[in-house]
Protein backbone atom coordinates (compact mmCIF):
# COMPACT_ATOMS: atom_id res chain seq x y z
CA UNK A 1 0.00 0.00 0.00
CA UNK A 2 1.22 3.47 -0.76
CA UNK A 3 2.32 5.81 1.99
CA UNK A 4 0.23 8.98 2.36
CA UNK A 5 1.86 10.49 5.40
CA UNK A 6 5.29 10.13 6.96
CA UNK A 7 5.52 11.79 10.37
CA UNK A 8 8.96 12.04 11.97
CA UNK A 9 9.89 13.50 15.36
CA UNK A 10 6.79 15.66 15.57
CA UNK A 11 6.94 17.92 18.63
CA UNK A 12 4.48 20.55 19.77
CA UNK A 13 4.27 22.82 22.77
CA UNK A 14 2.78 26.22 23.47
CA UNK A 15 4.63 29.32 24.59
CA UNK A 16 2.43 31.49 26.78
CA UNK A 17 4.17 34.82 26.71
CA UNK A 18 1.91 36.47 29.30
CA UNK A 19 2.83 33.76 31.81
CA UNK A 20 6.41 33.48 30.65
CA UNK A 21 5.98 29.72 30.43
CA UNK A 22 6.00 26.76 28.04
CA UNK A 23 3.44 23.99 27.94
CA UNK A 24 4.45 20.77 26.22
CA UNK A 25 1.75 18.94 24.24
CA UNK A 26 3.64 15.96 22.80
CA UNK A 27 7.15 15.28 21.63
CA UNK A 28 9.02 13.15 19.15
CA UNK A 29 6.04 11.38 17.59
CA UNK A 30 6.77 9.31 14.49
CA UNK A 31 4.53 7.14 12.34
CA UNK A 32 3.60 6.31 8.76
CA UNK A 33 0.10 6.19 7.38
CA UNK A 34 -0.89 4.33 4.23
CA UNK A 35 -3.74 4.88 1.81
CA UNK A 36 -6.97 3.42 3.21
CA UNK A 37 -5.57 3.09 6.72
CA UNK A 38 -7.42 4.28 9.81
CA UNK A 39 -5.33 5.41 12.78
CA UNK A 40 -6.96 6.05 16.14
CA UNK A 41 -5.36 8.53 18.54
CA UNK A 42 -6.06 7.76 22.14
CA UNK A 43 -4.98 9.07 25.51
CA UNK A 44 -6.41 10.81 28.54
CA UNK A 45 -7.86 14.33 28.41
CA UNK A 46 -5.10 16.79 27.65
CA UNK A 47 -2.79 14.14 26.18
CA UNK A 48 -2.63 16.15 22.96
CA UNK A 49 -4.97 14.22 20.64
CA UNK A 50 -6.75 17.23 19.17
CA UNK A 51 -3.50 19.19 19.25
CA UNK A 52 -1.95 16.49 17.08
CA UNK A 53 -4.74 16.78 14.49
CA UNK A 54 -4.48 20.56 14.43
CA UNK A 55 -0.71 20.41 14.09
CA UNK A 56 -1.01 18.06 11.12
CA UNK A 57 -3.58 20.45 9.58
CA UNK A 58 -1.26 23.42 10.26
CA UNK A 59 -3.76 25.28 12.46
CA UNK A 60 -1.02 24.85 15.07
CA UNK A 61 2.64 25.33 14.28
CA UNK A 62 4.91 22.42 15.25
CA UNK A 63 8.18 23.10 17.05
CA UNK A 64 10.14 20.29 15.45
CA UNK A 65 9.78 17.36 13.09
CA UNK A 66 8.61 16.59 9.60
CA UNK A 67 5.21 15.77 8.15
CA UNK A 68 5.74 14.52 4.62
CA UNK A 69 2.45 14.38 2.75
CA UNK A 70 2.33 12.54 -0.57
CA UNK A 71 0.14 14.94 -2.50
CA UNK A 72 -0.97 14.75 -6.12
CA UNK A 73 1.74 17.35 -6.79
CA UNK A 74 4.53 15.38 -5.13
CA UNK A 75 5.83 15.05 -1.59
CA UNK A 76 5.55 18.16 0.58
CA UNK A 77 6.49 18.84 4.20
CA UNK A 78 3.29 20.26 5.66
CA UNK A 79 5.19 21.94 8.48
CA UNK A 80 7.22 24.04 6.06
CA UNK A 81 4.86 24.38 3.08
CA UNK A 82 3.89 27.86 1.93
CA UNK A 83 0.51 29.06 3.25
CA UNK A 84 -0.88 29.12 -0.28
CA UNK A 85 -0.01 25.44 -0.72
CA UNK A 86 -1.61 24.49 2.58
CA UNK A 87 -4.77 26.37 1.55
CA UNK A 88 -4.77 24.52 -1.77
CA UNK A 89 -4.28 21.11 -0.14
CA UNK A 90 -7.09 21.84 2.33
CA UNK A 91 -9.41 22.55 -0.57
CA UNK A 92 -8.47 19.44 -2.48
CA UNK A 93 -6.70 16.67 -0.57
CA UNK A 94 -6.77 17.14 3.21
CA UNK A 95 -10.04 17.35 5.14
CA UNK A 96 -10.68 18.21 8.78
CA UNK A 97 -13.91 17.09 10.43
CA UNK A 98 -14.76 18.68 13.75
CA UNK A 99 -17.86 18.55 15.90
CA UNK A 100 -18.76 22.15 15.16
CA UNK A 101 -20.31 23.74 12.14
CA UNK A 102 -19.00 27.12 11.09
CA UNK A 103 -22.25 28.58 9.77
CA UNK A 104 -22.36 31.89 7.96
CA UNK A 105 -25.20 34.38 8.05
CA UNK A 106 -27.56 34.09 5.06
CA UNK A 107 -26.01 30.90 3.63
CA UNK A 108 -28.42 27.95 3.40
CA UNK A 109 -27.61 24.42 4.58
CA UNK A 110 -27.53 23.06 1.03
CA UNK A 111 -25.27 25.86 -0.23
CA UNK A 112 -22.90 25.34 2.67
CA UNK A 113 -22.68 21.60 1.94
CA UNK A 114 -22.26 22.15 -1.81
CA UNK A 115 -19.47 24.71 -1.35
CA UNK A 116 -16.47 22.31 -1.24
CA UNK A 117 -17.61 20.74 -4.52
CA UNK A 118 -18.13 24.13 -6.19
CA UNK A 119 -14.71 25.23 -5.06
CA UNK A 120 -13.25 22.03 -6.50
CA UNK A 121 -14.72 22.96 -9.89
CA UNK A 122 -18.02 21.02 -10.00
CA UNK A 123 -20.94 22.77 -11.68
CA UNK A 124 -23.41 24.48 -9.32
CA UNK A 125 -26.41 22.19 -10.13
CA UNK A 126 -24.25 19.06 -9.81
CA UNK A 127 -22.84 20.25 -6.47
CA UNK A 128 -26.33 21.03 -5.20
CA UNK A 129 -27.63 17.59 -6.19
CA UNK A 130 -24.85 15.89 -4.27
CA UNK A 131 -25.32 18.24 -1.30
CA UNK A 132 -28.99 17.22 -1.09
CA UNK A 133 -28.06 13.56 -1.36
CA UNK A 134 -25.71 13.84 1.64
CA UNK A 135 -28.05 15.99 3.71
CA UNK A 136 -30.64 13.28 3.22
CA UNK A 137 -28.15 10.51 4.04
CA UNK A 138 -27.27 12.16 7.34
CA UNK A 139 -30.96 12.57 8.17
CA UNK A 140 -31.48 16.33 7.73
CA UNK A 141 -35.17 16.88 6.90
CA UNK A 142 -35.69 18.32 3.41
CA UNK A 143 -37.71 21.21 4.85
CA UNK A 144 -34.45 22.46 6.39
CA UNK A 145 -32.24 22.27 3.31
CA UNK A 146 -32.87 25.83 2.22
CA UNK A 147 -32.90 27.26 5.76
CA UNK A 148 -29.96 28.92 7.51
CA UNK A 149 -28.21 26.47 9.87
CA UNK A 150 -27.35 29.20 12.39
CA UNK A 151 -30.81 28.55 13.86
CA UNK A 152 -30.55 24.72 13.87
CA UNK A 153 -30.13 22.56 16.98
CA UNK A 154 -26.63 21.31 17.82
CA UNK A 155 -27.34 17.84 16.41
CA UNK A 156 -28.79 19.16 13.13
CA UNK A 157 -25.84 21.53 12.72
CA UNK A 158 -23.48 18.63 13.21
CA UNK A 159 -25.21 16.66 10.43
CA UNK A 160 -24.82 19.61 8.06
CA UNK A 161 -21.21 19.87 9.15
CA UNK A 162 -20.54 16.19 8.37
CA UNK A 163 -22.27 16.36 5.01
CA UNK A 164 -20.07 19.34 4.12
CA UNK A 165 -16.88 17.80 5.45
CA UNK A 166 -17.33 14.43 3.78
CA UNK A 167 -18.92 15.37 0.45
CA UNK A 168 -15.60 15.61 -1.36
CA UNK A 169 -13.39 12.51 -1.10
CA UNK A 170 -9.94 13.40 0.25
CA UNK A 171 -6.61 11.67 0.39
CA UNK A 172 -6.25 12.37 4.11
CA UNK A 173 -9.04 12.96 6.59
CA UNK A 174 -8.51 14.23 10.14
CA UNK A 175 -11.46 13.45 12.42
CA UNK A 176 -11.88 15.29 15.73
CA UNK A 177 -14.70 13.57 17.61
CA UNK A 178 -17.18 13.69 14.75
CA UNK A 179 -19.68 11.39 16.49
CA UNK A 180 -20.24 13.70 19.47
CA UNK A 181 -23.87 14.91 19.71
CA UNK A 182 -25.08 12.69 16.86
CA UNK A 183 -28.23 10.57 17.00
CA UNK A 184 -28.05 6.85 16.16
CA UNK A 185 -29.21 7.23 12.54
CA UNK A 186 -26.61 9.89 11.72
CA UNK A 187 -23.91 7.87 13.46
CA UNK A 188 -24.68 4.87 11.24
CA UNK A 189 -24.58 7.13 8.16
CA UNK A 190 -21.27 8.61 9.25
CA UNK A 191 -19.63 5.25 9.84
CA UNK A 192 -20.93 3.99 6.48
CA UNK A 193 -19.49 7.04 4.71
CA UNK A 194 -16.14 6.66 6.48
CA UNK A 195 -16.04 3.00 5.48
CA UNK A 196 -16.77 3.87 1.86
CA UNK A 197 -14.06 6.55 1.82
CA UNK A 198 -11.59 4.20 3.47
CA UNK A 199 -12.26 1.49 0.87
CA UNK A 200 -11.58 4.05 -1.84
CA UNK A 201 -8.19 4.83 -0.32
CA UNK A 202 -8.74 7.76 2.05
CA UNK A 203 -6.27 7.61 4.95
CA UNK A 204 -7.76 8.71 8.28
CA UNK A 205 -6.53 9.83 11.67
CA UNK A 206 -9.25 10.14 14.27
CA UNK A 207 -10.02 11.06 17.85
CA UNK A 208 -13.21 9.47 19.19
CA UNK A 209 -14.72 9.66 22.64
CA UNK A 210 -16.45 6.36 21.98
CA UNK A 211 -14.13 4.42 19.64
CA UNK A 212 -16.67 1.55 19.65
CA UNK A 213 -18.56 3.49 16.98
CA UNK A 214 -15.74 2.96 14.51
CA UNK A 215 -14.12 -0.14 15.96
CA UNK A 216 -14.27 -2.19 12.76
CA UNK A 217 -12.54 0.61 10.83
CA UNK A 218 -9.50 0.99 13.09
CA UNK A 219 -6.25 -0.46 11.78
CA UNK A 220 -3.84 0.98 14.33
CA UNK A 221 -3.78 2.95 17.58
CA UNK A 222 -1.37 5.51 18.92
CA UNK A 223 -1.52 6.25 22.64
CA UNK A 224 -0.45 9.80 23.37
CA UNK A 225 -0.46 9.40 27.14
CA UNK A 226 2.90 10.90 28.17
CA UNK A 227 4.24 7.90 30.12
CA UNK A 228 3.19 5.31 27.55
CA UNK A 229 6.03 3.23 26.02
CA UNK A 230 7.91 4.43 22.97
CA UNK A 231 6.15 5.20 19.74
CA UNK A 232 7.05 2.11 17.75
CA UNK A 233 5.49 -0.10 20.41
CA UNK A 234 2.51 2.12 20.79
CA UNK A 235 1.86 2.37 17.10
CA UNK A 236 0.84 -1.25 16.71
CA UNK A 237 -1.37 -1.95 19.67
CA UNK A 238 -4.20 -4.22 18.62
CA UNK A 239 -7.65 -2.97 19.51
Amino acid at each position, binding site marked *: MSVILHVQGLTKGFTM*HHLGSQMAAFSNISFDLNAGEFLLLKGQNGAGKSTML*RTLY*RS*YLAQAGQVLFHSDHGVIDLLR*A*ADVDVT*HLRRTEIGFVTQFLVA*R*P*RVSAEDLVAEPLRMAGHSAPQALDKARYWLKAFGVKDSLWRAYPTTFSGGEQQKVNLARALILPRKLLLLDEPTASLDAHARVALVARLQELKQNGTAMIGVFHHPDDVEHLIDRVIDLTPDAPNMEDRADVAV
Partner: protein
Amino acid sequence: MTLTLDAPRIVTTRPLVTLRDVTKTYGDVQAVTRVSAEVFPGEVLGIVGESGSGKSTLLRMMNLEDTPDSGSYTLDLPDVQGNLFELGRFARRMLCATKIGIVYQNPHLGLLMKHSSSGNVAERLLIAGERRFSVLRDKARAALAASEFPLERLDAPPIELSGGMQQRVQLAKAIALEPALLLLDEPTTGLDVSVQALVLDTLKRLQQDRNITMVIVSHDLGVIRTLADRVMVMRRGEVVEAGLVDQIFQDPQHPYTQQLVHAKL
Protein backbone atom coordinates in the same frame (compact mmCIF):
# COMPACT_ATOMS: atom_id res chain seq x y z
CA MET B 1 9.40 39.34 7.84
CA THR B 2 7.89 37.87 4.72
CA LEU B 3 4.63 36.13 4.20
CA THR B 4 5.42 33.29 1.87
CA LEU B 5 8.32 34.57 -0.18
CA ASP B 6 10.96 32.03 -1.07
CA ALA B 7 9.18 29.04 0.54
CA PRO B 8 9.10 25.84 -1.56
CA ARG B 9 5.88 25.66 -3.56
CA ILE B 10 3.61 23.09 -5.12
CA VAL B 11 1.02 25.59 -6.33
CA THR B 12 2.56 27.24 -9.32
CA THR B 13 0.17 30.21 -9.52
CA ARG B 14 2.09 33.45 -9.34
CA PRO B 15 1.09 36.03 -6.74
CA LEU B 16 -1.07 38.85 -8.07
CA VAL B 17 0.43 41.34 -5.63
CA THR B 18 4.05 41.41 -4.55
CA LEU B 19 5.34 43.99 -2.08
CA ARG B 20 9.02 43.98 -1.24
CA ASP B 21 10.75 45.87 1.53
CA VAL B 22 8.30 48.74 1.57
CA THR B 23 9.41 51.50 3.94
CA LYS B 24 7.71 54.83 4.61
CA THR B 25 8.59 57.55 7.07
CA TYR B 26 6.74 60.75 7.94
CA GLY B 27 9.35 63.08 9.42
CA ASP B 28 10.78 61.19 12.38
CA VAL B 29 8.00 58.63 12.41
CA GLN B 30 8.71 55.27 10.81
CA ALA B 31 5.19 54.46 9.57
CA VAL B 32 6.00 51.27 7.64
CA THR B 33 9.28 49.37 7.94
CA ARG B 34 10.52 46.88 5.36
CA VAL B 35 7.18 45.17 4.76
CA SER B 36 7.09 42.36 2.22
CA ALA B 37 3.99 40.40 1.26
CA GLU B 38 2.39 38.39 -1.50
CA VAL B 39 -1.30 38.05 -2.28
CA PHE B 40 -2.41 35.26 -4.58
CA PRO B 41 -5.28 35.45 -7.07
CA GLY B 42 -8.63 34.98 -5.34
CA GLU B 43 -7.10 35.21 -1.91
CA VAL B 44 -8.18 37.51 0.93
CA LEU B 45 -5.33 38.93 2.99
CA GLY B 46 -6.29 40.51 6.30
CA ILE B 47 -4.07 43.10 7.97
CA VAL B 48 -4.59 43.67 11.68
CA GLY B 49 -2.90 45.83 14.27
CA GLU B 50 -3.59 48.67 16.66
CA SER B 51 -4.04 52.31 15.60
CA GLY B 52 -0.78 53.69 14.27
CA SER B 53 0.57 50.26 13.32
CA GLY B 54 0.95 51.32 9.69
CA LYS B 55 -1.79 49.12 8.25
CA SER B 56 -3.79 51.92 6.62
CA THR B 57 -0.61 53.61 5.35
CA LEU B 58 0.32 50.34 3.66
CA LEU B 59 -3.13 50.07 2.09
CA ARG B 60 -2.99 53.65 0.80
CA MET B 61 0.36 52.88 -0.80
CA MET B 62 -1.20 49.83 -2.45
CA ASN B 63 -3.81 52.22 -3.85
CA LEU B 64 -0.92 54.40 -5.09
CA GLU B 65 -2.14 57.41 -3.11
CA ASP B 66 1.14 57.59 -1.31
CA THR B 67 4.70 56.71 -2.31
CA PRO B 68 7.10 54.92 0.03
CA ASP B 69 10.71 55.97 0.65
CA SER B 70 11.85 52.63 -0.74
CA GLY B 71 10.54 49.27 -1.82
CA SER B 72 8.67 47.82 -4.77
CA TYR B 73 5.11 46.93 -5.66
CA THR B 74 4.15 44.77 -8.63
CA LEU B 75 0.86 43.47 -9.98
CA ASP B 76 0.99 40.34 -12.12
CA LEU B 77 -1.42 41.50 -14.84
CA PRO B 78 -1.16 41.79 -18.61
CA ASP B 79 -0.11 45.34 -19.57
CA VAL B 80 1.11 46.14 -16.06
CA GLN B 81 4.86 46.11 -15.69
CA GLY B 82 7.58 47.16 -13.32
CA ASN B 83 7.53 48.80 -9.93
CA LEU B 84 4.20 50.62 -9.64
CA PHE B 85 5.66 53.10 -7.13
CA GLU B 86 7.72 54.49 -10.02
CA LEU B 87 4.70 55.27 -12.21
CA GLY B 88 3.84 58.86 -13.07
CA ARG B 89 0.67 60.58 -11.92
CA PHE B 90 -1.43 59.88 -15.00
CA ALA B 91 -0.41 56.21 -15.21
CA ARG B 92 -1.24 55.78 -11.51
CA ARG B 93 -4.63 57.34 -11.98
CA MET B 94 -5.47 55.06 -14.91
CA LEU B 95 -4.23 51.97 -13.11
CA CYS B 96 -6.26 52.77 -10.00
CA ALA B 97 -9.33 53.56 -12.07
CA THR B 98 -9.24 50.27 -13.95
CA LYS B 99 -7.43 47.60 -11.94
CA ILE B 100 -7.72 48.55 -8.27
CA GLY B 101 -10.86 49.31 -6.26
CA ILE B 102 -10.95 50.74 -2.75
CA VAL B 103 -13.56 51.10 -0.01
CA TYR B 104 -12.69 53.59 2.72
CA GLN B 105 -13.93 53.62 6.28
CA ASN B 106 -15.06 57.20 5.72
CA PRO B 107 -17.47 57.38 2.75
CA HIS B 108 -16.60 61.07 2.32
CA LEU B 109 -13.18 59.99 1.04
CA GLY B 110 -14.61 57.70 -1.59
CA LEU B 111 -17.85 59.37 -2.69
CA LEU B 112 -19.24 62.63 -3.97
CA MET B 113 -21.85 62.98 -1.27
CA LYS B 114 -24.25 65.24 -3.15
CA HIS B 115 -24.27 63.46 -6.50
CA SER B 116 -26.63 60.58 -7.16
CA SER B 117 -25.49 57.10 -6.08
CA SER B 118 -25.61 55.81 -9.65
CA GLY B 119 -23.70 58.93 -10.77
CA ASN B 120 -20.95 58.12 -8.27
CA VAL B 121 -20.52 54.69 -9.78
CA ALA B 122 -20.77 56.00 -13.35
CA GLU B 123 -18.05 58.56 -12.64
CA ARG B 124 -15.64 55.74 -12.11
CA LEU B 125 -16.54 54.28 -15.50
CA LEU B 126 -16.16 57.71 -17.10
CA ILE B 127 -12.62 58.09 -15.76
CA ALA B 128 -11.81 54.74 -17.33
CA GLY B 129 -12.96 56.09 -20.70
CA GLU B 130 -16.54 54.85 -21.08
CA ARG B 131 -18.71 57.45 -22.83
CA ARG B 132 -21.84 55.60 -23.96
CA PHE B 133 -24.72 56.62 -21.74
CA SER B 134 -26.58 53.30 -21.95
CA VAL B 135 -23.44 51.35 -21.00
CA LEU B 136 -22.72 53.72 -18.10
CA ARG B 137 -26.27 53.32 -16.82
CA ASP B 138 -26.36 49.54 -17.17
CA LYS B 139 -22.95 48.93 -15.64
CA ALA B 140 -23.61 51.27 -12.71
CA ARG B 141 -26.90 49.53 -12.09
CA ALA B 142 -25.32 46.07 -12.26
CA ALA B 143 -22.54 47.05 -9.83
CA LEU B 144 -25.04 48.52 -7.36
CA ALA B 145 -27.19 45.38 -7.65
CA ALA B 146 -24.14 43.16 -6.99
CA SER B 147 -23.43 45.24 -3.88
CA GLU B 148 -27.04 44.60 -2.81
CA PHE B 149 -27.97 48.27 -2.99
CA PRO B 150 -31.76 48.85 -3.24
CA LEU B 151 -32.22 49.85 -6.87
CA GLU B 152 -35.22 52.09 -6.19
CA ARG B 153 -32.74 54.48 -4.56
CA LEU B 154 -30.36 54.79 -7.52
CA ASP B 155 -30.85 58.54 -7.74
CA ALA B 156 -30.48 59.27 -4.04
CA PRO B 157 -27.24 61.08 -3.15
CA PRO B 158 -25.09 59.29 -0.52
CA ILE B 159 -25.62 62.15 1.93
CA GLU B 160 -29.25 61.04 2.26
CA LEU B 161 -28.33 57.38 2.85
CA SER B 162 -27.48 55.38 5.97
CA GLY B 163 -23.86 54.38 6.70
CA GLY B 164 -24.43 50.82 5.51
CA MET B 165 -25.93 52.05 2.22
CA GLN B 166 -23.04 54.48 1.70
CA GLN B 167 -20.62 51.57 2.05
CA ARG B 168 -22.57 49.66 -0.60
CA VAL B 169 -22.25 52.60 -2.99
CA GLN B 170 -18.51 52.69 -2.33
CA LEU B 171 -18.35 48.97 -2.92
CA ALA B 172 -20.31 49.26 -6.17
CA LYS B 173 -17.96 52.00 -7.32
CA ALA B 174 -14.97 49.86 -6.42
CA ILE B 175 -16.17 46.76 -8.29
CA ALA B 176 -17.83 48.49 -11.28
CA LEU B 177 -14.84 47.81 -13.51
CA GLU B 178 -14.21 44.34 -12.09
CA PRO B 179 -10.86 45.28 -10.56
CA ALA B 180 -8.15 42.68 -10.13
CA LEU B 181 -7.56 43.91 -6.59
CA LEU B 182 -10.04 45.22 -4.05
CA LEU B 183 -8.69 47.15 -1.06
CA LEU B 184 -10.88 47.56 2.02
CA ASP B 185 -9.95 49.99 4.78
CA GLU B 186 -12.06 49.29 7.86
CA PRO B 187 -15.15 48.83 5.65
CA THR B 188 -17.52 48.02 8.50
CA THR B 189 -16.19 50.19 11.30
CA GLY B 190 -18.86 52.53 12.62
CA LEU B 191 -21.75 50.46 11.28
CA ASP B 192 -24.12 48.82 13.71
CA VAL B 193 -23.74 45.08 14.15
CA SER B 194 -26.61 43.88 11.95
CA VAL B 195 -25.59 46.18 9.09
CA GLN B 196 -22.00 45.07 9.56
CA ALA B 197 -23.05 41.43 9.11
CA LEU B 198 -24.87 42.29 5.87
CA VAL B 199 -21.89 44.17 4.43
CA LEU B 200 -19.58 41.29 5.39
CA ASP B 201 -21.93 38.82 3.76
CA THR B 202 -21.98 40.90 0.57
CA LEU B 203 -18.17 40.96 0.52
CA LYS B 204 -17.98 37.22 1.07
CA ARG B 205 -20.41 36.57 -1.78
CA LEU B 206 -18.52 38.87 -4.13
CA GLN B 207 -15.30 37.15 -3.25
CA GLN B 208 -16.72 33.68 -3.85
CA ASP B 209 -18.74 34.47 -6.97
CA ARG B 210 -16.15 36.63 -8.71
CA ASN B 211 -12.98 35.32 -7.11
CA ILE B 212 -11.80 38.89 -6.43
CA THR B 213 -8.44 39.24 -4.69
CA MET B 214 -8.84 41.38 -1.59
CA VAL B 215 -6.72 43.07 1.04
CA ILE B 216 -8.70 44.09 4.08
CA VAL B 217 -7.46 46.26 6.92
CA SER B 218 -9.41 46.14 10.16
CA HIS B 219 -8.87 46.32 13.87
CA ASP B 220 -11.98 44.14 14.24
CA LEU B 221 -10.71 40.58 14.54
CA GLY B 222 -14.18 39.14 13.90
CA VAL B 223 -14.26 40.80 10.49
CA ILE B 224 -10.84 39.44 9.64
CA ARG B 225 -11.74 35.97 10.84
CA THR B 226 -14.86 35.93 8.67
CA LEU B 227 -13.23 37.15 5.49
CA ALA B 228 -9.50 36.47 5.41
CA ASP B 229 -7.61 33.40 4.22
CA ARG B 230 -4.35 34.73 5.61
CA VAL B 231 -3.49 37.37 8.16
CA MET B 232 -0.60 39.75 8.60
CA VAL B 233 -0.18 41.28 12.06
CA MET B 234 1.43 44.74 12.17
CA ARG B 235 2.84 46.70 15.05
CA ARG B 236 4.70 50.00 14.92
CA GLY B 237 5.13 49.73 11.17
CA GLU B 238 6.51 46.20 11.16
CA VAL B 239 5.00 42.82 10.39
CA VAL B 240 5.38 40.81 13.59
CA GLU B 241 3.62 37.67 12.40
CA ALA B 242 1.86 36.31 9.33
CA GLY B 243 0.06 33.06 8.65
CA LEU B 244 -3.13 31.20 7.85
CA VAL B 245 -6.13 32.76 9.56
CA ASP B 246 -6.86 29.73 11.77
CA GLN B 247 -3.22 29.52 12.85
CA ILE B 248 -3.04 33.21 13.79
CA PHE B 249 -6.20 32.90 15.89
CA GLN B 250 -5.60 29.43 17.38
CA ASP B 251 -1.84 29.34 17.82
CA PRO B 252 -0.43 32.88 17.71
CA GLN B 253 3.34 32.92 18.15
CA HIS B 254 4.34 36.52 18.76
CA PRO B 255 3.69 38.03 22.21
CA TYR B 256 1.84 40.94 20.59
CA THR B 257 -0.41 38.64 18.52
CA GLN B 258 -1.19 36.56 21.61
CA GLN B 259 -2.16 39.71 23.47
CA LEU B 260 -4.30 40.87 20.55
CA VAL B 261 -6.12 37.53 20.10
CA HIS B 262 -6.68 37.04 23.83
CA ALA B 263 -8.03 40.57 24.17
CA LYS B 264 -10.93 39.70 21.87
CA LEU B 265 -14.21 39.35 23.71
